[in-house]
């Protein structure tokens, strides 16, 4: 008996996902994917790459998160039986049998009425483990970092670029322009004055940024890009043509179509370069989401503790230590039942 499989099922009860589940109804396709992921991850032979790919899938869309929340709800239904072990299993098997004959009786009654409710057979074949866009883009990037890694580059013009965790970047310098393409993740840039006075651009999936002598971070997620400017000015031009100049101390979020109003720059967006994660009245959920970016496994936060307020500075390069620090100051408990699955719940 591979007893190390059980904790996954337990951890699925942790309440993670409940917050998003109600908001969105996933389609059959994403449920199919979620079920397939579940079967993959429950397998004792699941590899790190599977977990990473699952994370990317999970992060890909709110629909995927909603689908996964249903997977967790299903798993939760088995909880009362778990403590009864083999008896619980036997009773469940018996219950399936009883339900089957009951369903048969019910179906016969319905047939008499003319309302045949067949459950459409769902096709499994359509879905395979799709290579995820993030992973794919990393392979064609000039520079990239894995989860939990950071890297510093000095470009040909003397500009410095720091790559945060799970980031992929292309660099193209030619006679006319200095161009970076952020394919995934987050970068902090300290531009140098260029002897050839070429413009400095950063392209993301959502538009182009032009740096006007500055220090700024660009973070790209699937649906948008966030810009925080710490020095100088950066101009955003979204793919759809919307534009905004963002001065030092301010930030903005944009996607292909729209650019947000100016926000305050978040100093956490600069602090990661030094390996620290400042939390200034963040919620635990937000901080753990941030910590999760540096962590190879998945961190699941129970809904009842997700809103706890957190202050302090946490190490970005050591998620385990950060979790231990949180455990000391908050009424929470951190459980690691599988190496890649961490649960944070009320103590």
């Amino acid at each position, binding site marked *: 008996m591979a007893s190390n499989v059980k904790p996954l099922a337990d951890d699925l009860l942790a309440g993670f996902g409940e917050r998003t589940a109600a908001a969105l109804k996933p389609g059959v396709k994403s449920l199919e994917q979620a079920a397939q992921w579940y079967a993959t991850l429950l397998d004792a032979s699941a590899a790190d790459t599977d977990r990473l790919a699952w994370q990317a899938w999970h992060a890909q869309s709110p629909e995927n998160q909603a689908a996964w929340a249903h997977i967790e709800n*299903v798993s939760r239904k088995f909880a009362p039986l778990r403590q009864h072990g083999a008896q619980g299993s036997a009773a469940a098997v018996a219950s399936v049998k009883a339900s089957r004959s009951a369903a048969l009786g019910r179906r016969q009654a319905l047939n008499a009425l003319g309302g045949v409710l067949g459950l459409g057979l769902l096709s499994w074949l359509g879905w395979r483990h799709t290579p995820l866009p993030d992973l794919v883009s990393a392979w064609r990037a000039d520079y990239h970092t894995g989860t939990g890694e950071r890297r510093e580059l000095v470009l040909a013009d003397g500009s410095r670029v720091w790559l945060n965790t799970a980031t992929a970047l292309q660099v193209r310098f030619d006679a006319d322009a200095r161009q970076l393409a952020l394919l995934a993740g987050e970068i902090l840039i300290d531009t140098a004055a260029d002897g050839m006075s070429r413009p400095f651009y950063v392209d993301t999936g959502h538009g182009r940024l032009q740096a006007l002598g500055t220090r700024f971070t660009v973070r790209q997620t699937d649906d948008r890009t966030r810009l925080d400017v710490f020095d100088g000015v950066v101009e955003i031009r979204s793919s759809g043509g919307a534009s905004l100049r963002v001065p030092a101390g301010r930030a903005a979020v944009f996607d292909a179509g729209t650019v947000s109003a100016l926000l305050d720059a978040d100093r956490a967006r600069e602090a990661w370069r030094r390996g620290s994660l400042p939390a200034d009245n963040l919620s635990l959920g937000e901080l753990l989401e941030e910590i999760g970016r540096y962590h190879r496994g998945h961190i699941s936060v129970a809904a009842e503790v997700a809103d706890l307020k957190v202050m302090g500075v946490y190490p970005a390069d050591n998620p385990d230590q950060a979790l231990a620090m949180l455990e000391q100051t908050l009424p929470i408990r951190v459980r690691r039942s599988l190496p890649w699955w961490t649960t944070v719940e009320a103590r």
Partner: protein
Amino acid sequence: MKPASRGFASVAETRAYLRTAANGLCIDLWRRREIEQAWLQTLAALPEPVAPSPEHQAIVIEALMEVGSMLSRLSEKAARAFILAQVEGVGYRDIAAELGVSERMVKKYIAQAMLQCALIEAGLAG
């Protein structure tokens, strides 16, 4: 019990529907009784008698009812594979040995069962 949504053409049809619904309720009642009995027998058969609280019993029976109906449309092997993994945390290799199928098949069963349950849970299945 879909017919309710489309309205009834006649009194006779309404009656037929109510009869069916009542029939369904009876069936569920029998099913509950059957499951309850099976569970109590299981407990009684244990070498060391256990007496869980009535509340816990109710929770277990409720879980059995729900799990039972969620899995009732699956093949017997798929349902068993899923139960072994969910309830006892049995690994794929051991499930494969127990059911006499390949590990790949076990993984298929698990995905299939989880999808079936998730569809029901999400309100997307009949």
